[in-house]
């Protein structure tokens, strides 16, 4: 049946069973890629002609900022799916994405501030890119706070999804902020449509880090979702089976 997969996807138990096999591979891939990318970026990539060695922060700053933004889409879209199709699992993913997004936005802001000191002479400026990233951080924090603010989980789910959807306005503003307003922040160095303004010897370690961060994001998002599923469904017999360390049968999705 055409719609069967979609309903299955909404089943926490099905999700938990399916993802079990992926976890060690995602963990391994992210550790290897981030490990290799960091060593490459810190020790082997050439020094930047203008910024010296401080530019090496780019290898964590850019991937973190990428995923802070991409993660917002994931949070908002899973919130929307939950609202439209009343899918339980979707709200769980949304909550997990809020935690990860807050951490990644914090990393982007922190590494940006530390990078700003030697290159711009200041930790912080209230310019468009940085301020809109700060708003993104507050949006993530807002969703997390809302998710704990209601005693009924279903009410909290809906409130979080609405806040996440309204906050989507901020995303194009962040993307375009370096073009629309005068800013200290440098424009994007990696472009998909034209030649990137970054040398291959610096680009490949950056690409390694970006892919590594994507793997890490997938891994931690699934891991957090799985734990939240167990917490929500702890009364069910399959969760108790999992917690006793027994293997689950390929039973019906339920």
């Amino acid at each position, binding site marked *: 049946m055409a719609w069967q997969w979609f309903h299955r996807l909404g089943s926490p138990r099905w999700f938990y069973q399916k993802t079990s096999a992926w976890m060690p591979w995602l963990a391994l891939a992210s550790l290897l890629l981030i490990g290799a990318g960091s060593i490459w970026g810190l020790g082997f990539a050439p020094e930047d002609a203008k910024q010296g060695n*401080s530019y090496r922060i780019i290898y964590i700053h850019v991937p973190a900022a990428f995923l802070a933004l991409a993660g917002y889409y994931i949070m908002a879209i899973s919130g929307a799916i939950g609202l439209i199709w009343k899918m339980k699992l979707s709200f769980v993913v949304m909550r997990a994405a809020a935690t990860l997004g807050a951490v990644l936005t914090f990393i982007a802001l*922190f590494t940006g501030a530390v990078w700003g000191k030697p290159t711009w002479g200041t930790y912080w400026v209230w310019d468009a890119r940085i301020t809109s990233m700060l708003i993104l951080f507050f949006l993530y924090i807002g969703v997390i706070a809302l998710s704990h603010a209601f005693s009924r989980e279903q009410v909290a789910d809906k409130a979080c999804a609405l806040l996440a959807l309204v906050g989507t306005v901020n995303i194009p503003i962040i993307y375009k902020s370096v073009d629309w307003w005068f800013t200290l922040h440098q424009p994007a160095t990696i472009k998909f449509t034209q030649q990137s303004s970054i040398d291959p010897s610096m680009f490949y370690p950056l690409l390694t880090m970006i892919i590594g961060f994507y793997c890490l994001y997938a891994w931690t998002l699934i891991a957090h979702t799985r734990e939240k599923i167990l917490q929500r469904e702890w009364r069910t017999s399959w969760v108790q089976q999992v917690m006793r360390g027994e293997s689950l049968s390929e039973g019906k999705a339920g």
Partner: protein
Amino acid sequence: MQFQFDSLTAFLYMDGHGIFVWAAYGVTFAALAAVALYPRLQRRRLQRELERQRRIESRRRSVQASRARETEPA
């Protein structure tokens, strides 16, 4: 591809930028490690909670059973 620094001290110092670079990397890795390990912590917490519930349940049952025995007509 070649290592860009002459010595370990030069690598750590990075012409004065080392403190910024290493602070950024340190905080990032600490935050990422926390995110990666958090689910494990949650799992352990849930495990403890379920065990506590199970203990309470079995104690309740044994109390009920002994009470039932006491009130049983001889």
